[in-house]
C-alpha cells in the first residue's frame, strides 16, 4: 500500500477478518499474478501472493488504534473503517475500535464471500451478521459510543427486507457483493482461483475478460429494486427515514409459527431495546489529534511543498510524537508531483514515537539521532530513513536495539539505514524498500514480496517465513543462520555475483550512520563476502530467471515480463507444486 494509493481513497478499510472465512487469509495463485497485477501489488509476476490472516502490525487494540491514527494522517479526508466479523464478544471489540477512533465499523456475516473462500469455511465457519450486528449496536449504545461511529453490515444482503432488518438491528450502511456480482453475470463457478472464469469476472486474462457482458446499469437496476422494497417496508412500518429506524428492535418480532427446532430459538437478547443516553446512530465525527506534522512540519516545509525549495530542519522529538512525517508525506503526495531526492531533509533528536516516517514519499530524508518506537517506516513509499544513536552515546550500537518492532511493515519503496539492532518482525511484507540493519529479532522478512534487506548481524528465529519475493543478505559470521531461517519457501546460498550491490548499500550505510560494523565489513570485504548468505525465494528466482531469459532473447520491459509470465504459466512443474 503506497502513500499515493491511500491519498486517493474516500474510505480506507482495515480488514481484521472476513465473514465467510474468519481467521483465514487470502492467496492469489501465481498464475493469476499477471504483470499488471504484480505492478499494483509491488510484487513479481507469476509469483503467488499470500495475504496472511494475522496483521503483523496489530497484536492488540492499541496497535489497531495506532494504525487508524497513521491512516488518518496518511489521508485526513478518508473515513477509516474497520471490518470485524460476527462472533460472540464482537461488541467488546467494536467498543475498543470505536475508542480507537475508527469512523466506520463493519460487521460481516458468514454467508457472503463464497467465491474466494474454501468450501470447508463456507460451510463450517462464521456466524450470521444479525447476531454480531445486534451485539455490537447494543454494546456501543450502552457505552455511549454509538453516536460517533457508523455501523455497517454485510454478508450476503440480497433484498430490501435484509436491509430493513439490518437497519432495525442497528446498521446504518449496508454492503452488497454477491447480488451485484450475479447481476453482472457471475454464474458461481467457484473457479475464481484458477483464472478460468468463463464470464470474465474473476480473471485478468484478456481473452476471458472479453467474455464479460456486465453493465453498470444492471447493478443500478438491482439497487433500485432493493431500495424500492426497502421503501415499501418502511411505509408499512410507518418510518420516514432510515436514521430513525436504526436499532428499533421493537419493530421486529420473532415469528411464532416456526416448526420444529426453530421454535426453540430464543431471540430476546437480539431484540432487546436499550434506551440510548447519547445518539442511536452516528451523529458526531471522531475528534482529530494534531501531531508534530500539523503543529510544525507542514509550516516549516511549505517552501518545499509550494516551490520545491530545499529545506533542512532540525527538531527535537519525543515519544508522544507519533506518525511524524506522515502528514507531510500525505501533503506532498496529494500535490501529485514527487520531489527530487533530498529536497526535504529533516533531522530529529530524541526518542521518536510510533510510526516514525510512515508512508513517507520520495524526496524526504528523515534522520533520527536517538531511537524509535514500533512501526518505524511503516508503508514507506520512497522516502529515506536513517536512524543512528546520538553522537555522545556510550553503548555499542550493534549490540543494542535502536528501533522497535514491525519496522518497515508493508513498505513499498525507499531506503533505510539503521545503525543498531531492530526488534521483531522486521520488514514483514516489505515489497520494495532497500534497507541495511545491524541485527533483527524474530520473524524477520516474513511474507516479504520485494525489496532488499542487508542484515550485518544476527537474526532471530523464523527468518523469511512465507517470503515470496525480494532478497535478503545476512552476514552470518557465526555460521548458524540456516538454523534460524524458515526455509519452506526460500533457498540459502552464497552471493553469486561480485556482491557490488551489497557493498554499495553498506557504503551508503556507513556514510549515513557512521556505522562501525559497516566500516569493518568494508575494510574486510573480501574475507567477509563469503560469509554473506543470500536468502532468495524459490518462486521468485524462477521468475527472475525467466525474465532474464526473455530479456536475453531480445525482449524488453513489459514484453519481457509477459513472456516470462506466459512461460511460467506453462511450467508444468510449477502447476503441480501449486
Amino acid at each position, binding site marked *: 500500500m503506497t502513500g499515493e494509493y491511500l491519498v486517493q481513497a474516500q474510505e480506507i478499510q482495515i480488514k481484521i477478518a472476513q465473514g465467510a472465512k474468519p481467521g483465514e487469509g487470502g492467496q492469489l495463485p501465481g498464475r493469476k499474478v499477471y504483470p499488471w497485477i504484480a505492478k499494483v501489488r509491488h510484487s513479481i509476476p507469476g509469483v503467488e501472493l499470500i495475504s496472511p490472516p494475522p496483521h503483523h502490525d496489530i497484536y492488540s487494540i492499541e496497535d489497531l488504534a495506532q494504525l487508524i491514527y497513521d491512516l488518518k494522517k496518511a489521508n485526513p479526508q478518508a473515513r477509516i473503517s474497520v471490518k470485524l466479523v460476527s462472533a460472540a464478544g464482537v461488541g467488546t471489540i467494536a467498543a475498543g475500535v470505536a475508542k480507537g477512533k475508527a469512523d466506520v465499523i463493519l460487521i460481516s456475516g458468514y454467508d457472503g464471500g463464497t467465491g474466494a473462500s474454501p468450501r470447508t469455511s463456507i460451510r463450517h465457519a462464521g456466524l450470521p451478521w444479525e447476531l454480531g450486528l445486534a451485539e455490537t449496536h447494543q454494546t456501543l449504545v450502552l457505552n455511549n459510543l454509538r453516536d460517533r461511529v457508523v455501523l455497517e453490515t454485510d454478508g450476503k444482503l440480497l433484498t430490501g427486507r435484509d436491509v430493513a432488518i439490518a437497519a432495525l438491528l442497528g446498521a446504518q450502511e449496508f454492503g452488497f457483493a454477491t447480488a451485484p456480482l450475479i447481476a453482472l453475470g457471475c*454464474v*458461481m*463457478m*467457484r*473457479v475464481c482461483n*484458477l483464472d*478460468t472464469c*468463463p*464470464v470474465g469476472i474473476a480473471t485478468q486474462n484478456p*481473452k*476471458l475478460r472479453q*467474455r464479460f*457482458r456486465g453493465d453498470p446499469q444492471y447493478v443500478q437496476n438491482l439497487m433500485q429494486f432493493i431500495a424500492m422494497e426497502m421503501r415499501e417496508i418502511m411505509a408499512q412500518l410507518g418510518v420516514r427515514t432510515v436514521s430513525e429506524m436504526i436499532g428499533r428492535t421493537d419493530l421486529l418480532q420473532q415469528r411464532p409459527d416456526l416448526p420444529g427446532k426453530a421454535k426453540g430459538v430464543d431471540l430476546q437478547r437480539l431484540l432487546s431495546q436499550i434506551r440510548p443516553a447519547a445518539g442511536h446512530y452516528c451523529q458526531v465525527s471522531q475528534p482529530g489529534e494534531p501531531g508534530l506534522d500539523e503543529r510544525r512540519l507542514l509550516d516549516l516545509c511549505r517552501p518545499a511543498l509550494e516551490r520545491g525549495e530545499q529545506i533542512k530542519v532540525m527538531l527535537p522529538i519525543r515519544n508522544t510524537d507519533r506518525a511524524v512525517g506522515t502528514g507531510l508525506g500525505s501533503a506532498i503526495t496529494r500535490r501529485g508531483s514527487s520531489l527530487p531526492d533530498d529536497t526535504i531533509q529533516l533531522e530529529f533528536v530524541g526518542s521518536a514515537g510510533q510510526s516514525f516516517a510512515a508512508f513517507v514519499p520520495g524526496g524526504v530524508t528523515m534522520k533520527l539521532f536517538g531511537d524509535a518506537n514500533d512501526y518505524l517506516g511503516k508503508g514507506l513509499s520512497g522516502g529515506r530513513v536513517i536512524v543512528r544513536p546520538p553522537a555522545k552515546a556510550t553503548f555499542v550500537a550493534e549490540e543494542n536495539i535502536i528501533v522497535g518492532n514491525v519496522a518497515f511493515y508493508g513498505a513499498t519503496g525507499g531506503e533505510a539505514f539503521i545503525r543498531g539492532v531492530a526488534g521483531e518482525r522486521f520488514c514483514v511484507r516489505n515489497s520494495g524498500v532497500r534497507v541495511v540493519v545491524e541485527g533483527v529479532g524474530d520473524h524477520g522478512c516474513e511474507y516479504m514480496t520485494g525489496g532488499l534487506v542487508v542484515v550485518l548481524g544476527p537474526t532471530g528465529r523464523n527468518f523469511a517465513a512465507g517470503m515470496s519475493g525480494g532478497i535478503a543478505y545476512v552476514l552470518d559470521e557465526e555460521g548458524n543462520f540456516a538454523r534460524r531461517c524458515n526455509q519452506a519457501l526460500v533457498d540459502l546460498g552464497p552471493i553469486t555475483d561480485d556482491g557490488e550491490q551489497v557493498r554499495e548499500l553498506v557504503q551508503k550505510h556507513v556514510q549515513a550512520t557512521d556505522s562501525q560494523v559497516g566500516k569493518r565489513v568494508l575494510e574486510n570485504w573480501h574475507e567477509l563476502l563469503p560469509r554473506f548468505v543470500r536468502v532468495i525465494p524459490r518462486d521468485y528466482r524462477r521468475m527472475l530467471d525467466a525474465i532474464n531469459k526473455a530479456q536475453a532473447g531480445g525482449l524488453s520491459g513489459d514484453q519481457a515480463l509477459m513472456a516470462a509470465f506466459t512461460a511460467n504459466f506453462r511450467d508444468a512443474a510449477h502447476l503441480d507444486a501449486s
Partner: protein
Amino acid sequence: MGKPTGYLEYQRRPSPCRPPQARLGDWREFCLPMPDQELREQAARCMDCGVPFCHGGVVFGGAPAGCPLHNLIPEWNDMVYRGFWREAYQRLTITNDFPEFTSRVCPALCEGSCTGGLYGEAVTIQAIERAISERAFASGWVWCEPPVHRTRKRVAVVGSGPAGLACANQLNQLGHSVTVFEQADRPGGLLMYGIPNMKLDKAFVLRRVRLMREQGVVFQTNTRVGDDYPVKLLEREFDAIVLACGARQPRELSVPGREAQGVHLAVDYLTASTKAILAGATPAISARGLHVVVIGGGDTGTDCVATCLRQGCRSVIQLEIMPARPKVRSPENPWPQWPQLDRPGYGQTEAVRVFGQDQRHFCQQTQAILTDGDGNVRAVQSVQVGPRPMAGSVQEWPADLVLLAMGFSGPESRLLDQLGLARDQRGNVPAEFFATSLPGVFAAGDVKRGQSLVAWAIAEGRAAAQACHRYLTGE
C-alpha cells in the same frame, strides 16, 4: 474437471455423422462414434461448475433446464477425461437405466444449460454419454444381474416405452415380479416404432429388452390391456399396477379432405416402415415415387422426412404452422433455459442434400386436403398465417402422400376409463407422487404429463417404481 483450461484449449466438436449421400442408401444409424482422443478432449471442456445446471432438471420461467434424470454429468466427464471408463459407466447408471437410448434420442437439455454454452459452446455431453454406454456394452460391463431376493409381489406395468421399461427395470431390481404388457408385437413403445432405425437402431432396444428378460422381467406383447387382457383380471392378478401407456392420442387435423386416401398419421407411417425393415419386407405405407407433404415441424416430422427420403420419394415438403425459430437465443429465452433455436434436424439436412434447398415452409396452416375424383389425395392447400391468416396467401402443395406429424393430444381413454381413473382437463392422469386416484395404481411418463421426452419418461418411470415399492412394502 480434469483440466481447468480445457474449455479454452479445445473447440467443441459435434458427434461425427455419416455424410447424407452415404447414409440415405440404408437404414443404419447416421451418427458415428467419436475417437477416444477426441472424447477425452471434449470431456476436458467440462468446467465442473460450482453451480451446474446441466443436471438440474428444473423449470425456469416455464422452460426446462438440465437433465431430468439428474445425470452426474460433470463427474463422468471428468472420469472420461482421466480414462476411467468403467467408473464413468457406474456413475452414469446410478441415475440412468438406459443411457444407450437417451444418448441417441434425447434433445440434450443438458447441453442447452451447460455453462460452456453461456458465452461459448456447450460440452458434447451426449456424445460422451453414448461413448460410455457403448463401451460398457462392448467391454462386457453390462451383464445379467437378477435380484438376489424376491418379494413375491407382482406388479403389472402397462406399456413398454421408456417409462414402462425404466419402471419395470427398477421394480425388478427391487425384487418384485414384473410383467410388462405391450400392445405391439415387440416391446419398446415409441422407442421401437416411433423413432426410426437410423436414429436408434432397433438392435439396441432388443438388446436391452433381452437383458431385462434375463433378469426376470416378463414381457407380454400383442396384449392390449382392457381388450386382450381384462382389467378385472389385471386387478386380481397383480398387487400393483403402473400405467406407462403413453400419450398416444394423435392431434388431429380437422380440415376437409382429412379422410382422403393417402393421408396417414405419422406414427402409423413410421411403425409400418420400421416393421418392414425388421421383417425385410415392403412397408404397408411407402413414399416410393410419391410427392409427400409432412404436416408438422417437430422431431416426428423430421423422422418422416428422413424415412420418405430413404424410401425414395419424388419430393417431400414440410409444413409448420409456427414461424421459424431464431438462429440465436432471443432475450426472452435466456441461458440456462433450453434454447429455442432453429436447428435443422438430420432429415432436413438430408432433404437439402437431395433437393438443394430447405424443404420446410413456416407459418403454413393447412386449410384443406384436396382430392382427385377417386378420393385420393391430390394436394394440400395451406394459407400463410401471421397472427391471422393472410389474404391472398393460399398455396397448393401437390401431394400423393400426406403425413400428419402434429404431436399427441393426450393418452388414449379406453383403458383409463375402464379402470375408472380421474383425469385432468387435458385428459392426462393426475398423479401427485405418481399415485393415481386409485390405490395401488400408479402412473408414469406421458400418460401422466402429456407428450414429452424420453429422459422425462425414464425419470418418471424410476420415480414411480420407488412410489410403487413404498406402497408394496409399506415403507
